[in-house]
């Protein structure tokens, strides 16, 4: 079936809502297993297989097993959601085969909730509705009050969901699930009710900035790309997320691929591109699989391909797998990689919006940026511009790891303080050592000591402190951890991921690793610290691409805030 009219989208939505509604006579129960890479790594495959086996054994026809993506709180995986007709959904944490068996027999079959295994009651996608109705959903009976309601958990209630709006609520393998959450309505609006200038103005006015790290105004980039009158143009989604400790793009791609595809179609319409690439790292096989499937479903609905929605606009997307080089996340290296060349960066002038893939104007945007587009187009730029700070609008997804309770992906309004994210949302392990620092922005970012935790998260503020928002990786360290070791880890990462093209990055990172090794092993001298600092500055000033230009940040920021730690290690 080809979607052409607004009513087609509404029809799909209505049909699906009816189909998904549980009732005593038809489908009376549903088990949802959260099957992103984080879930699978913790054993979600075993869990879903157990349920399938039990269901087959029990010969019950009125129980449904469903999959969705990650709901953000990866440290509680494997997570499952059990829904019974007219009852509040229950989310269980750390499920294994044994627990799955018990849950199936007790809860799914007999309605006895196993509160000792339960994490929360209620679904994330229904939080707003629950808050409006005083903590419940009309028509859903609260069965077990001893379990915490989802809106009472700070991890969930302090978040603002735009990018991750559909997590846990859609099956990434089913386009109808996405359409039922008002998906592709923004594409309809962009193609049938707006022209290129309208779309670009909307994005400009929204104040959205690139979420890949640098924070360049997205609308401005689109404007530059739209100016060129060349026939062939490209839109690229940069899904080569490679910072150690960063996985928010993966979570979006695996949980809600259509939100990215929808953003790309709108971007293509705005700049008049005919072809798109999703450059996804090969280390994300599940994301590649899900994206490929999502693209073919979008094509079947006429949302990609020739004459989208019956208009004269044509656009298609291809998934392009990287070959494992971190540097290919750099725009110009990414372009070379798609062209089939060695993934080396080049001088950024001319910019990719003028000369990109195959020398054609190319718009490259990060996954998270693109996932923001559809809500902005649908809800308007004013709605978006209300969220965030004066210079940085909207939200940012952070993937937070380290010495905290809730490891996972959190989306908060820009301008939230570091303390809120770390202490309230992620939570500090009780009785644990004091928190010492947080590393923001991965190997390109910097390390901030605890005294700056009241700093708000936005592009400019963080830059002033010698770190960056970056793609959103956040690594929390307690007093047991050595920041020198952290600096060494990131330097080793940059050394092995340097493409080897320019001398400062290739040889400079190698020598910095040498010096850091010496210091960490107790063979360093005081002069080594100065030599390290000097070299770090030269590498920043003289490297060719972003990798080298930021490779020294972890070293310089730790030297700035924790020089004593270095001095304690040298003779």
């Amino acid at each position, binding site marked *: 079936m080809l979607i052409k009219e607004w009513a087609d989208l509404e029809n799909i939505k209505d049909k699906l809502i009816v189909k998904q509604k549980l009732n005593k006579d038809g489908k009376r129960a549903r088990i949802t297993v959260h099957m992103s890479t984080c879930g699978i790594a913790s054993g979600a495959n075993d869990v879903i297989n157990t349920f399938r086996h039990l269901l087959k054994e029990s010969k019950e026809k009125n129980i449904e097993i469903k999959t969705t993506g990650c709901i953000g709180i990866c440290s509680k995986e494997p997570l499952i959601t059990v829904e019974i007709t007219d009852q509040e959904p229950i989310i269980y944490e750390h499920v294994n085969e044994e627990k799955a068996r018990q849950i199936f027999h007790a809860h799914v079959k007999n309605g006895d909730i196993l509160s000792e295994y339960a994490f929360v009651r209620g679904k994330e996608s229904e939080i707003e509705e629950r808050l409006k109705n005083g903590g419940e959903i009309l028509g859903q009976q609260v069965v077990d009050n001893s379990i915490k309601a989802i809106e009472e958990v700070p991890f969930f209630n302090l978040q603002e969901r735009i990018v991750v709006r559909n997590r846990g609520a859609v099956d990434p393998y089913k386009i109808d699930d996405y359409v039922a959450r008002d998906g592709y309505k923004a594409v309809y609006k962009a193609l049938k009710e707006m022209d290129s200038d309208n779309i670009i103005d909307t994005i400009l006015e929204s104040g959205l900035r690139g979420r890949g790290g640098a924070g360049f105004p997205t609308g401005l980039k689109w404007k530059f790309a739209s100016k060129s009158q060349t026939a062939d143009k490209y839109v690229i989604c940069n899904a080569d997320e490679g910072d150690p400790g960063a996985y928010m793009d993966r979570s979006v791609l695996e949980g809600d691929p259509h939100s990215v595809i929808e953003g790309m179609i709108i971007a293509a319409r705005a700049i008049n591109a005919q072809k798109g690439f999703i450059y996804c790292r090969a280390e994300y096989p599940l994301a590649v699989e899900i994206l490929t499937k999502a693209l073919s479903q979008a094509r079947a609905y006429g949302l990609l391909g020739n004459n989208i929605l019956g208009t004269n606009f044509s656009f298609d997307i291809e998934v392009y797998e990287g070959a494992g*080089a971190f*540097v290919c996340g750099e725009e110009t290296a990414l372009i070379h990689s798609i062209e089939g060349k*060695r993934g*080396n960066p*080049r*001088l950024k*002038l001319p910019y990719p919006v003028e000369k990109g893939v195959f020398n054609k104007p190319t718009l490259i945007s990060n996954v998270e940026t693109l996932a923001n587009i559809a809500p902005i187009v649908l809800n308007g730029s004013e709605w978006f511009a209300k969220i965030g700070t004066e210079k940085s609008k909207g939200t940012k997804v952070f993937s937070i790891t380290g010495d905290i309770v809730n490891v996972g992906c959190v989306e908060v309004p820009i301008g939230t303080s570091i303390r809120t994210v770390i202490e309230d949302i992620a939570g500090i392990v009780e009785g644990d050592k004091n928190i010492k620092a947080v590393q923001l922005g991965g190997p390109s970012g910097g390390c901030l000591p605890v005294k700056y935790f009241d700093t708000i998260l936005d592009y400019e503020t963080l830059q002033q402190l010698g770190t960056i928002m970056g793609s959103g990786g956040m690594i929390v360290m307690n007093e047991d951890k050595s920041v020198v070791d952290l600096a060494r880890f990131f330097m080793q990462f940059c*050394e*092995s*991921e*340097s*493409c*080897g*093209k*320019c*001398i*400062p990055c*290739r*040889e*400079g*990172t*190698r*020598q910095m690793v*040498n010096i850091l090794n010496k210091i960490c092993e107790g063979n360093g001298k005081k002069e080594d610290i100065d*030599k390290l600092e*000097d*070299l770090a500055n*030269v590498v920043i*000033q*003289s*490297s*060719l691409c972003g990798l080298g*230009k930021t490779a020294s940040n972890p070293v310089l920021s730790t030297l700035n805030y924790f020089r004593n730690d270095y001095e304690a290690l040298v003779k």
Partner: protein
Amino acid sequence: MIVSVRELSYEDLKNKLDPNDKILLWSCNACIALCEVGGTDNLNLLEEMLTADGYEVIGKELISIGCIYSLVQDRINNPNKKDLFNEATTIISLTCEDGAEIPKCLLKEKKVICVAKTVGVGNFTEDKGMILTSPFEWTGFEANEEGYGISEISEKLDLYPSFFDESKAPINSNEDLIQVTINGKECSVKKGTTIMQAAEDNGFKIPRLCANPDLTADANCRLCLVKVEGQKELLPACAANVTNNMKVITQDKELNHIRKTILELLLATNEHNCLTCFKGNATVSGACELQGLIREFGIQNTRFEQNKEKVPVDSTSPILNYDPNKCILCGRCVRACREIAGKDNIGFANRGAQTFVAVGANKKFNQSACVECEACIGVCPTGAITEKITHYSGEEWEGMLVYQS
């Protein structure tokens, strides 16, 4: 070496052209470049002159050796070049007469104009330039080991001793000139020039190891970084073009510190004996650009840990030795093999500090597609790729020359 002397005057050349011709300039980078009729500079000059006179020059092609039939054939059939050769109606060949025969033969329907007359075989000398030692009979010269200089030959045979007169290259209009300030000096330079070229034309030499006039800029050695007013970051002079009213600083304390550090980092890699090689390395005839810079910057030591791991030398090629221990990964050979030879036989393998220059599918030279055109030898700035014929024939004066620079 083949000795050729320019036969056509600029007027003669124009008489052979039609105003509607779509002209492709073709040159070989071997003997003819040393005879001062071919090579990049002359291609550029001729393009400027013809364009100023209203002719349409659609492209310039430089080939490492213009008399290897297969090499020329590859270039003409290269998918990226095919359109260019198809579009051209006229080829002006800055090659010897032999070299002009191949495009004549491969592009039968096109007009091929050969600019030079080939007079025999000779040698290249540092003091006299190209000399003719074994003249063709028709020239009337006797074979002579001392040889005859180009001016002597041209006088007797009524040929032209130099390339087309540069002073005759008119500037289209003042619009093509822009004002830049380099190290406080106000200069007018042509639009579209690189900062490096503009600085050099005005007497400021900027250090470089990866840039070469015959090759596209790659900006990887970072030695040519300069300060440009209003720019947050340093710009590579080899790749960034001048813009109107640009203010450039090519040298100061900070830039020198960066350059010194980069050279020190290079010294710490592989086996660079620049600091002890006082007579000039015999295998490189004293022409090592790295050593020149080390001396220019007065570097006497490296602060960094040296990596002494040695890799075997590849001496399988009949014409060259490839010593990876002296390679600085500037990529000139990689670009020369792609851009001048059109072979793409040399490339980078691995990444980061493990990067190395690989030949063929990481094979030895004699197992690869190398056609021995010498494009890589000519551009290598160190002793990594050297011509076998020069091995152990370096002379003392050559070492002195490096030291004086």
